């Protein structure tokens, strides 16, 4: 069956621009997570959705970052006024239920801010 998909796989942008990163979770998964992985580090939690609502956005680094999941399926991570320090791999994961169920990760979007 289809796994978690993320588009684009690579995104190069200039400092100050706006970007959107998309995540398609596994069908039927109610929980969706965004993580960010910087070079040489493990994934770092950004935000968790249960259904359409952001249940925990405590990992978002600042107000330039925002995420939505309007219909409880596809999610979009939005970054305004990108900075070079935003360069990282952005990973999306989904699970059938929020706890005890395995999180399945997508391949990630590599964002490069020049």
């Amino acid at each position, binding site marked *: 069956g289809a796994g978690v998909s993320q588009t684009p796989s690579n995104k190069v942008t200039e400092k100050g621009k706006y970007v959107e990163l998309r995540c398609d979770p596994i069908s039927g998964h109610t929980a969706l997570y965004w993580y960010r992985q910087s070079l040489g580090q493990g994934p770092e939690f950004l935000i968790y959705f249960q259904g359409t609502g952001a249940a925990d956005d405590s990992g978002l680094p600042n107000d330039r970052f925002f995420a939505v999941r309007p219909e409880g399926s596809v999610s979009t991570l939005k970054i305004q006024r990108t900075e070079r320090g935003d360069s990282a791999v952005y990973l999306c994961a989904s699970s059938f239920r*929020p706890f005890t169920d395995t999180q399945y990760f997508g391949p990630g979007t590599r964002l490069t801010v020049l």
Partner: protein
Amino acid sequence: DQQVKQNSPSLSVQEGRISILNCDYTNSMFDYFLWYKKYPAEGPTFLISISSIKDKNEDGRFTVFLNKSAKHLSLHIVPSQPGDSAVYFCAASPVSGGYNKLIFGAGTRLAVHP
């Protein structure tokens, strides 16, 4: 501060021998622990988990040991195979959050050579 630490950035093991990957944590509220494996250009893949009520969990060639008093867990792979070569991430989660907000270590790159 790093709540989950993998102090060995890399490990090299001969095929057929045992691989032991270590992980330390500092937050006593963590009570669910996982290991993920990551190949280049792919998202992390769940490998094995352990709840704090156990001290050992086994799945085929993979065994995870948890020492709560030492706040230490380890992943044993026996026998190691070349296909096991990947980056291994240790992750931890507090139950109190009600969902799997995973806190990852920085990873250990395992190389299994013939």
